[in-house]
């Protein structure tokens, strides 16, 4: 027989209970009732089934999951008799929501809370880079979501490095792993330009990590834009709301992130064509210059202007046939035309001989004693013919 004082007894009882019931091994399944929060710090509620009820206590900062009366939960905690009041309660360390109803309700509550805080604000959403080079990918590498995503990226684009952070996307460790991946990425040496978080579709139980406050905050805190793609066309997860862009599926996420090489290739072709067109147009407008030059040449040589024009055109054409590169074609043509400029010929040392105002082309028109006028690049002088050489 042992006699304890009241406080000693309570201590012994608490000790016995603590040692035999641990929140790592034992959970209590029940329905939440009489839920209340006092002073924004302490949470009290009752956990009941149809035959029994137990008091529960928790702190606000420890209880991340918002609860409501009527929700079914698993509660994990230490049973304890509070010495001062003799009151028995479970000190709850964590809870799990059971059943779709509870999860939906928690989803609604969290969505409202985060929306009010501004995590879904449109103004904060950032643009995705058009041509990313480094993408951070948080996904389960065993999943179809992952293989689909990679396949579509490879089809569409090249020159990309995908930095894969493999995580569990559901189950007990999912939230921790996903949040940890976000943290790793922020601190990485490689500057990724965009982060993508994907998984396949699933039930609301499966999607719990994507509806969690921790993952939502990790997305919000990301310094680079985040694309979320849950393989789930209908319902949206909290992660979808916080994301900079929401993709309807992992494949859609791939389409959003990288361009289609065929479309870009087409755009490049169109631009090349436009350049060529403008270049041709510039050449066309330079035909005016050509006209001036041929007129000058015709005046000087006395030939008909059409003849000169034809000659110049044939030369330029012939040159164009020889040279493949447009650049050479154009500069070559310009050079030829410029060299046909009479002024240039004179500057190079050629001279023009005039007799009685007409250009002399052959010595046959000259006789000893004739007076001729000679035009040089610089200046003109007269001369008497001394001797004709044949």
């Amino acid at each position: 027989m042992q006699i304890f004082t009241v406080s000693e007894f309570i201590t012994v009882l608490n000790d016995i209970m603590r040692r035999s019931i641990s929140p790592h091994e034992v959970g209590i399944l029940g329905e939440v009732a009489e839920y209340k929060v006092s002073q924004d710090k302490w949470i009290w509620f009752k956990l009941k089934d149809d035959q029994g009820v137990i008091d529960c206590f928790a702190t606000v900062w420890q209880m991340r999951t918002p609860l409501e009366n009527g929700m079914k939960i698993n509660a994990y905690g230490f049973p304890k008799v509070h010495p001062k009041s003799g009151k028995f309660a479970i000190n709850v360390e964590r809870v799990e929501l059971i059943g779709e109803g509870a999860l939906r309700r928690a989803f609604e509550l969290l969505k409202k809370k985060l929306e009010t805080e501004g995590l879904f604000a449109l103004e904060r959403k950032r643009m995705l880079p058009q041509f990313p080079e480094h993408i951070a990918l948080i996904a389960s590498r065993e999943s179809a979501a992952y293989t689909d995503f990679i396949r579509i990226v490879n089809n569409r684009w090249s020159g990309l490095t995908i930095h894969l952070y493999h995580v569990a996307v559901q189950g007990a460790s999912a939230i921790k792993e996903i949040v940890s991946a976000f943290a790793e990425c922020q601190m990485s040496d490689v500057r990724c330009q965009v982060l993508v978080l994907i998984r396949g579709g699933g039930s609301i139980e499966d999607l719990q990590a994507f509806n969690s406050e921790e993952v939502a905050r990790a997305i919000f805190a990301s310094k680079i834009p985040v694309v979320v793609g849950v393989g789930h066309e209908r319902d949206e997860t909290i992660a979808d709301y916080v994301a900079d862009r929401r993709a309807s599926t992992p494949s859609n996420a791939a389409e959003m992130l990288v361009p289609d090489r065929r479309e870009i290739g087409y755009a490049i072709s169109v631009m090349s064509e436009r350049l060529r067109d403008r270049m041709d147009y510039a050449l066309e407008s330079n035909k005016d210059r050509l006209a001036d030059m041929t007129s000058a040449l015709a005046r000087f040589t006395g030939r008909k202007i059409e003849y000169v024009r034809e000659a110049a055109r044939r030369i330029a054409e012939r040159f164009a046939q020889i040279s493949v590169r447009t650049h050479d074609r154009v500069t070559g043509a310009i050079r030829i035309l410029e060299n046909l400029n009479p002024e240039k010929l004179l500057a190079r040392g050629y001279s023009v001989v005039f007799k009685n105002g007409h250009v002399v082309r052959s010595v046959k028109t000259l006789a000893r004693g004739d007076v001729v006028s000679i035009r040089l690049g610089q200046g003109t002088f007269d001369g008497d013919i001394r001797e004709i050489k044949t």
Partner: protein
Amino acid sequence: MASKIKKPTFEESFRELEKIVAEFESKEVDLEKGLAGFERGMELAQFCKKHLEEVENKVVEIKKRFGGVLGENEEGT
């Protein structure tokens, strides 16, 4: 310090090409100056097209550096 010529990214080249085309469209093309732009534009177009056809994608798996998750064995260390 010796200057290092950085390899141009696809994005830089594509943007420069867009800029040249915009310049060509907006004003009268001077034949002499236009040639330089035209040449550069063709060069860029060539580079971009080559990039689309050739370069492959790479997947690099990141192993966690410090304690935590991402697949590393938590026992011992």
